[in-house]
């Protein structure tokens, strides 16, 4: 799964990786603000800065550039809509801005493991409940996603999902997730958790 790359990337070591998560988050926001607010070609000044940072953090350049481009289809759709509404330069600018923003965000995520940035958010008074939900979601995201992929693969091997079969798979995925939540809760209680 795509995340696997992120997790390997975020656990590497470099000066960027070791930097404090809060500092990186603030820098990310500043970079995003600059891209968003600055007129014309200023955002292109950001690009070399991002590339340099990628080098310093010893991440695979091409992989990141390609991964950041995943945002382009949606942006392209919007850009096309805008182009046909008569604003062609606006469309191009928007495309560039959204790509650079995605690259910056990706760079942050690839150099900062989730426990680090959730701790940063927590220190900025994001509610602990929300942080905990984010962490548990992340923990089980790939486990449950794998289940979904297995079911989809099994279906593809038998001719693909019909609507009703897809619904059944969804319900099964849900039931198993619910049971899993009960098991996790039971395991927490068995080790002294007091809600």
């Amino acid at each position: 799964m795509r995340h696997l790359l992120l997790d390997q990337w975020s656990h590497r070591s470099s000066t960027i990786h070791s930097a404090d998560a809060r500092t990186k988050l603030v820098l990310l926001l500043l970079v995003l603000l600059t891209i968003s607010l600055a007129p014309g070609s200023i955002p292109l000044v950001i690009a070399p800065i991002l590339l340099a940072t990628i080098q310093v953090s010893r991440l695979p350049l091409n992989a990141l550039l390609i991964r950041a481009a995943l945002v382009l289809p949606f942006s392209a759709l919007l850009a096309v809509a805008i182009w046909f509404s008569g604003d062609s330069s606006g469309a191009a600018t928007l495309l560039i801005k959204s790509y650079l923003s995605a690259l910056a965000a990706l760079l942050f995520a690839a150099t900062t493991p989730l426990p680090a940035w959730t701790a940063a958010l927590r220190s900025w008074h994001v509610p602990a409940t929300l942080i905990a939900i984010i962490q548990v979601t992340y923990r089980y995201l790939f486990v449950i996603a794998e289940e979904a992929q297995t079911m989809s693969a099994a279906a593809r091997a038998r001719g693909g999902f019909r609507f009703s079969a897809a619904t059944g798979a969804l319900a099964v995925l849900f039931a198993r997730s619910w049971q899993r939540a009960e098991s996790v809760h039971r395991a927490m209680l068995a080790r002294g958790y007091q809600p």
Partner: protein
Amino acid sequence: MSPLLEVCNLRYRYPDGTDALRGIDFRMNSGECVALLGPNGSGKTTFALHLAGLLKGEGSVALHGKVGIVFQNADDQLFMQTVLEDVAFGPMNQGLTTTEAHARATECLDRVGMAHAASKAPYHLSAGEKRRVAIAGVLAMQPDLLVFDEPTTSLDPPAERELIKLLRALPQAKLLVTHDVPFARALASRAVFFEHGQVAADGPIDNVIDRFDWDFPQSVSPDRR
């Protein structure tokens, strides 16, 4: 010397009305290793949950010590972000400071041979590794009795051998709920057999296995002569 665990006439009925346990009498001494065998639905897991204090039935469960339970699905037990945090979860709930909890967690990870994985995310571990981390998480609470629910699920033969070695080295009393007969034989000298929520047999493991024909049936083994 009083037994570590004494269960008298334990009865339990699920909310939907099924009688899961219908009068269980059971005793265990410190350091003993007992296998709990029986068909699916006979109440073995329900019994294990009672020992861990997660279910409460009628009758009595007298424990002279702490119980730790290792569940069948290791994924559902390793719910923290990193291995170290997960093993430290129990000690933290017991009131230790973060430093103390982490120290104890490291020690337990060392004991199960997983100290190198302390900062890894549980998702990246193999089935055998997850199993060992789960055991470390339970050991970290310093229990006197360890209950294992189907511990060899998903383990390949080498991992199963590692698990047997590990369990043999643990001094705590152990109750193994399992279908894996060779595994049970390797560790336990005594077996209890559950049937329909009752104890149908309690004695030397070979006797119990023979009596209920619980080993891999020789009649369907391929004839390779």
